[in-house]
């Protein structure tokens, strides 16, 4: 298999896509939001239980490709127990990772990303950036208390990946 493909489909990603963690609904959720990627039909619902300013629990539901499922699964693991601000900062770092260019790819991966570093191969597949970031955009909408559905195709930036609100 080619090295780019192996970079994209790392073992950890394949594992999370086949056995997603924190998958299901969260009846005691205080926030939730829906996300949709109309290009591939991926859907994600993210449920968050906030305890004060802390993400006490988080789960997701939906159907998508291996990248979007694994990304949602690993996102839930990495933000549980963190503050809102920490979760949002992590999203920014993650977003930077999956949208970097070839020059930035020469640099070491931001250590603050921890396990999320396995998504370091996504940047080479521009059409898959949306798959990787769908759950994160949906999480942000849930944290912001914004209940309008998030779509990856209504974009405020020219990067073509930023989540926007479907109208």
């Amino acid at each position, binding site marked *: 298999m080619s090295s*780019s*493909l192996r970079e994209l*489909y790392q073992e950890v990603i394949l594992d999370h896509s086949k056995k997603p963690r924190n998958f299901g609904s969260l009846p005691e959720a205080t926030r939730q939001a829906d996300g949709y990627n109309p290009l*591939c039909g991926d859907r994600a619902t993210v449920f968050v239980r906030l305890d004060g300013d802390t993400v006490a629990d988080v789960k997701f539901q939906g159907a998508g490709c*291996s*990248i979007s499922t694994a990304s949602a699964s690993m996102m839930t693991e990495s933000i549980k127990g963190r503050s809102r601000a920490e979760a949002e900062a992590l999203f920014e770092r993650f977003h930077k990772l999956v949208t970097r260019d070839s020059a930035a790819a020469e640099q070491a991966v931001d250590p603050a990303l921890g396990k999320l570093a396995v998504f370091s191969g996504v940047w080479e597949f521009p059409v898959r950036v949306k798959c990787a970031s769908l759950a994160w955009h949906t999480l942000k909408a849930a944290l912001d208390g914004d209940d309008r559905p998030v779509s990856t195709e209504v974009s405020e930036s020219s990067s073509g990946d930023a989540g926007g609100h479907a109208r």
Partner: protein
Amino acid sequence: MSTRTEPVSGVAAVPLDLRSVRADFPILNRLVHDRPLVYLDNAASSQKPQAVIDAERAVYESYYANIHRGVHQLSMQSTDAYEAARAKVKRFIGAASTREVIFTRGTTEGINLVASSYGRRHVAAGDEVLITGLEHHSNIVPWQMLCDEKGASLKVAPIGEDGAVSMDEFERLLGPKTRIVAVSHVSNALGSINPVRRMTELAHAAGAVVVIDGAQAVPHMKIDVAALGCDFYAFSSHKLYGPTGVGVLYGRQALLEEMPPYQGGGDMILSVTFEKTTYNELPYKFEAGTPNIAGGIAFGAALDYVSGIGLERIAAHEHDLLVYATERLSAVPGLRLVGTASEKAAVLSFVLEGIHPHDIGTVLDYEGVAIRTGHHCAQPVMDRFCIPATARASFAVYNTREEVDVLVDGLARVRELFA
């Protein structure tokens, strides 16, 4: 490389010379991720033969100028070449006159033209427009917009489990309120071939006009609009080995004559004062603005190319590929074909159990195989089968049985990775 094809119905007694056809398409020599390109995304757009590339290049290198206005040599030469392409289209589809051949940007614009010009004049509150459950978004949305504007309603003849339109439902939904019937000739997502001649008879008996979206049909079968009896037939150049940005709307002259213009501008007028404009004759009344001149001329070269091979021969070859690919794909564990109508073009939509089409597409790309993944601009079709997306392999004249084998081997790699 095999050049054997099995004639389907006595036609194409002399099979396609596949080696020579492939040599006509320079892009087939390239590698993708170090593998020979296997291009199976023809329903989205087909590749271009050298003759088409040369024709477009020749326009700009030797005689390009704007058409229909200059008295100088280049303008006259360009005009002649552009109008010659129109005459080729007329012969290709069996239209009665070049007045019935309107150049557009593509199928989508052709359908929008009919909805906007004919539809706005003839559809009123309480009227109905009938489409089918296998339409591309471009044959849904223009009619939705028209119905919203007029207070009319959109009716949909559903498709069955095999992806064929239920003719019983189609007949049941046709009624005295039906003004327009808009159907695709061949489904882009499933490959199902609609019985458009029968549909046209039924629609005419009910007093409706018939618009056929022929984008997926024209590259694969001989079209004769007179024999079909339809009122409008829209298709694109780019799926027929021609350039993008060019399409054709065929319309019956009597209907086109009484229809108002679609867009206003240059070329569609005879005279303009600030008080009054006299519209140009057909087909120019519907062709405002400078068209894709070089594209239209190169489209004529594409029609010559296809006619040179013969659509019967192309159809026989593609049918052989369809039969072979159906057999091979059906044997892949966990694979389900979506769309198994008895009348089908060479389009295979499928899903693999537990594996998202997007992942299939990415892995196949690294095997050099280009397929389409997603909803194919036919979300209602996906909803009908309760799936978000499919993977789709679609064939053209230059594809081979060996390429089907590469696809099937690639799917084994996909299963290794994700199973």
